[in-house]
């Protein structure tokens, strides 16, 4: 049970959160302008790194806010959390 620091509520149990996958995948400005390949990438292809991964979470059973976290997928260590719209922190 991870302890995930919601940027508003502070640390809460993983069970209160929804997972939203890779962060910073904007909805395309004009989907019709995309090729089928580009659209397929938007729909189905998400990074799946072993290591630090910027990803989205929603504090679903709490404040219902979406936010971003950088988590090391090899250790589950959460290296940073930041609010939507804030830049991705540099992790050394």
């Amino acid at each position: 049970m991870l302890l995930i620091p919601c940027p508003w509520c502070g640390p809460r149990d993983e069970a209160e959160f929804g997972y939203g996958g890779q962060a910073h995948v904007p909805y395309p400005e004009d989907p019709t302008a995309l090729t089928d390949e580009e659209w397929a990438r938007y729909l189905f292809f998400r990074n799946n790194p072993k290591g630090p991964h910027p990803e989205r979470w929603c504090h679903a059973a709490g404040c219902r806010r979406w936010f971003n976290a950088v988590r090391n997928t090899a250790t589950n260590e959460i290296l940073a959390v930041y609010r939507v719209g804030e830049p991705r922190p540099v992790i050394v």
Partner: protein
Amino acid sequence: MSPRTPGAQLPEHPDWLWRTPDPRRSYDVVIVGGGGHGLATAHYLARNHGITDVAVLERGWLAGGNMARNTTIIRSNYLWDESAGIYEHALRLWEGLEEELDYPLLFSQRGVLNLAHSLQDVRDSVRRVEANRLNAVDAQWLDPRQVKEVCPIVNISPDARYPVMGATYQPRAGIAKHDHVAWGLARSADAAGIDLIQNCEVTGIDVTGGRVTGVRTSLGPIAAGKVALCAAGHSSVLAAMAGFELPLQSHPLQALVSELLEPVHPTVVMSNAVHVYVSQAHKGELVMGAGVDAYTAYTQRGAFHVIERQMAAALELFPVFARAHVLRTWGGIVDVTPDASPITGLAPVDQLYLNCGWGTGGFKATPGVGWVYAHTIAHDDPHPLARPFCLDRFTTGALVDEHGAAAVAH
């Protein structure tokens, strides 16, 4: 002196399994990943295609990934024709595999029940049964009373929170002993002259002019005419080495066993709605699994609340399990695709081949995958059964969506 318990032991493994060779500088075919799929591919490359200048590179101990961790359910009662095609092919191979490998695989066709708990479950189940029959996959719809006949300990009380409204039943489905399967395939590949190289992690894939030329490993570079990926949960990591991405997410999937118990559970029961699946292995332990942990991870372990939920679900279905004990829990890393169907075929790089995305359900496919993938590698052309499972489908939209109606995908 009390009598010995029947069943609490397994047949012996053979006296000889495989060599521990040093890697050579070059092979015709390098298979990355020494799990069930990699080993079956090696076995069928040799057996069906006479290709033996092959190395299987395994980062850890042979078949120590998902092959060592799965709940061993084998069935072929998938909804879509494409899936039924490849899984039924595998099931037919299972039916002859003990003989083919001359190894006791404890392949036990004890049947699999997929329980339905809502009216929609019932519709979906009947749909799958009817599709299976037309695809020559043995399948039946059972009412709750018949479910009870197959598995007397299932709670079919209408007062249950999610009562059992019936089940699909595939009598030819069942379980096999995972390690025996892997080792049988490994022994056969080794005997054919294929090098099984352990503690050899692939750390890079060399691509020149759009064509793969070899791999770099923790034991040094190895040249290869063809490279076949079989890395299950780590497929994305390997694809990244070759410069492309896959529509995969790697999640922990947990399983557990109880202590050894006298036989109580004669079949395999899976339930999508209350989310648990259980069988009793040959030694007597109950083997159970649940759903994937929600987030991606490469940790080979998951969170405990998933297990707690699973236990609550198990007791709804099997009240007699109350005082059984969880002996050991563990996790594997499964690579899940958007449509819950595998990806197998050609990669975007020449002479590189893809077999991944089997997610939570690839053990049952092991011999089928080996057969089909070896063909794909040997002919540089996807086997007909593999064609629907190409990477392209995510672009065209021709998905093989097994989420909706296929019950839990194990």
